[in-house]
């Protein structure tokens, strides 16, 4: 029996246990005991969970250990002693024989593997029957135990509640654990990178022109400063020069001047804009804004303006960020108590004086938090810069030059046929780690500021 069949078996018995448990509980209800502690459905769930969970846990463990058990049994056979000792071809032979035995491969290529096939088949059959027997045993033991617990006063409801809690806990842990796993792999690959290339060169070098044959003590072209600068210039400077004023002003208009009706239309529209795929903005940047910016630059005297200039990418990124800034600023201005606004208006202040002198200072921490979140979003943004910003690692403050960013270089380093051990590829992981740490710090600071500010008024 395969794992799938065993799983099917488990759930089939789980269903049966549910009906049996429920029927058993229903039979408790009589004229003498009209009310039992838990509804019959809960008794059904209790029995069903006891039938399923131990068997599932066993199967999870079994999936992980059975291949090793099977292989050991095959190797223990004297016929297997004749295969080569070379570890590479040995494991190739073994895995081929296993694949053929379980039916996922048809033909044999490795010499000596054909005589292992029957051995594998025998071993698999042997262990499959053990798994089948053990699963059945666990199902019956579990459900029998559950069945004996069922009584009119048995608190099946609270037991089921506990299982629900653990299921939810597990679900929430998966996202966190996955993130930790991703970070761990980033750290691991980045560590491999710094064993090849000096971290000092990587973090402080200004020459980005990565080459594959690393010579220790020489400049190998892994200086990431131009990338960091490009990321900050496009994401944190140009984009924010666009996003902060427009986002803030639209938030002020929406909270202070617009009618409730207009606001009820505009706010959802802004939030929908925040969900437009960034590749769409990328098209806009590359096809419309970049040529326009270049023509403008040439007109005002920058004859060497690039078509993949930093300005276009930064401006479009800023436009992309406007809804985010507007939405966060809107929330924090709206969170300033109405009493502040009334107090100022009652002093004879105009609407704009009230905003400038009372509302914005009071909402400032929230606004700053929102801007930091926007910056962290902008520097991690990939599509727009890949499509519009170019690949040349220039260390320049000229917004009409071609400037590259961390994310663009990660894409460039990982595109195409790459060997996963080469410094090229590993550099991408190191860049990713730097980006991750920076955005994480920005988010932490931003959320702290926002939270602190919220506490002050609630």
């Amino acid at each position: 029996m395969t794992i799938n069949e065993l799983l099917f078996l488990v759930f089939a018995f789980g269903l049966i246990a549910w009906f049996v448990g429920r029927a058993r509980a229903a039979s408790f209800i009589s004229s003498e005991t009209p009310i039992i502690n838990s509804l019959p459905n809960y008794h059904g769930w209790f029995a069903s969970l006891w039938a399923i969970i131990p068997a599932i846990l066993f199967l999870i463990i079994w999936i992980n250990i059975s291949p090793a058990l099977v292989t050991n049994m095959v190797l223990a056979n004297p016929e297997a002693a004749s295969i080569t000792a070379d570890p590479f071809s040995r494991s190739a032979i073994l895995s081929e024989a296993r694949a053929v035995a379980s039916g996922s491969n048809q033909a044999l290529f490795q010499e000596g593997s054909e005589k292992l096939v029957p051995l594998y088949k025998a071993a698999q059959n042997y262990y499959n029957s053990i798994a089948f027997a053990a699963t059945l045993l666990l199902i019956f033991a579990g459900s029998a135990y559950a069945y004996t617990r069922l009584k009119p006063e048995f608190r099946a409801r609270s037991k089921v509640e506990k299982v629900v809690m653990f299921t939810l806990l597990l679900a929430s842990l998966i996202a966190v654990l996955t993130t930790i796993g991703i970070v761990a792999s980033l750290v691991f690959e980045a560590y491999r990178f710094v064993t090849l290339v000096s971290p000092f060169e990587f973090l402080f070098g200004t020459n980005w022109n990565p080459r594959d044959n690393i010579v220790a003590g020489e400049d190998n072209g892994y200086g990431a400063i131009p990338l960091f600068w490009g990321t900050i210039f496009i994401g944190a400077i140009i984009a924010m020069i666009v996003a902060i004023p427009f986002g803030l002003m639209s938030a002020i208009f929406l909270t202070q001047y617009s009618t409730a009706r207009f606001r009820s239309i505009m706010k959802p529209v802004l939030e929908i804009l925040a969900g437009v795929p960034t590749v769409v903005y990328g098209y806009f940047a590359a096809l419309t804004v970049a040529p326009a910016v270049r023509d403008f630059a040439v007109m005002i005297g920058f004859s060497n303006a690039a078509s993949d200039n930093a300005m276009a990418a930064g401006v479009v990124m800023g436009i992309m960020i406007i809804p985010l800034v507007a939405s966060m600023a809107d929330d924090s201005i709206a969170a300033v108590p109405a009493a502040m606004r009334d107090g100022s208006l009652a002093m004879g202040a105009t609407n704009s004086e009230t905003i400038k002198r009372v509302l914005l200072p009071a909402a400032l921490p929230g606004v700053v938090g929102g801007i930091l979140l926007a910056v962290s979003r902008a520097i991690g943004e990939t599509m727009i810069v890949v499509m519009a910003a170019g690949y040349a690692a220039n260390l320049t403050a000229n917004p009409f030059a071609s400037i590259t960013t961390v994310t663009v270089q990660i894409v460039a380093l990982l595109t195409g046929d790459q060997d996963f051990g080469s410094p090229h590829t590993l550099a991408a992981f190191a860049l990713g780690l730097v980006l991750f740490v920076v955005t994480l710090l920005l988010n932490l600071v931003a959320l702290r500021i926002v939270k602190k500010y919220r506490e002050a008024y609630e």
Partner: protein
Amino acid sequence: MAEQNSQSDLSDNGTDTHKITARNVNVFYDDKQAINDVSIDVDMENVTAFIGPSGCGKSTFLRTINRMNDTIPSARVEGEIKLDGKDIYDASMDVVQLRARVGMVFQKPNPFPKSIYDNIAYGPNIHGLAANKAELDIIVERSLQRAGLWNEVKDRLSDSGTALSGGQQQRLCIARAIAVDPEVILMDEPCSALDPIATAKIEELIHELRGKYAIIIVTHNMQQAARVSQRTAFFHLGNLVEFGVTSDIFTNPQQTRTQDYITGRYG
């Protein structure tokens, strides 16, 4: 109208020179009428109390006097309210100037999240009342002194206004209102969030301020109305039931509804 009540103990100076005259005022929130045909006169150097059960419209009416109801989009005011004989709802009336002349203190102390000094300097700054820092210093000190707060805060003017106690915050708000030199001060249940000692201080302050301003105070507390006001208006369900000299209202009400309310039969 209870205009004909004895006014011997009031500094009333004739019907033409009331500070505020309201005639046939109606206020609507969308289609719901909150104030029904209210006419009332308010004089300088007087404290006028608005009393009545919750939802009777006394705060709504108070907010029509400095047009704070303008900030509520659904609110609509009909009728005539004159300040020194000029209709405040006339197109020629600048609402910003009006609010500088008619200050307001709110139910909950609402100091700005700025320093004590900046809280007081806020109004003078936006209205350009001080030519330089020295003049501003004088205004701040004078306002705080009049609000009876100077001695408590003179050494920490740069501390945040929100760090003061509730009663101090409310006196700060009164000082803030005084700083722009208004003629009328509206107080919307100024003591409802304060403890009895802070309340007593505010009431004392109202007594002292009475000589310079026309004060209108909305209150739930009938003892407070009796203690601080010279004239009292009783509102019920959006109507002005009775208006007259405070001592008459409390000792000899003309209307059974007033009598029932002040004796605690409802409200």
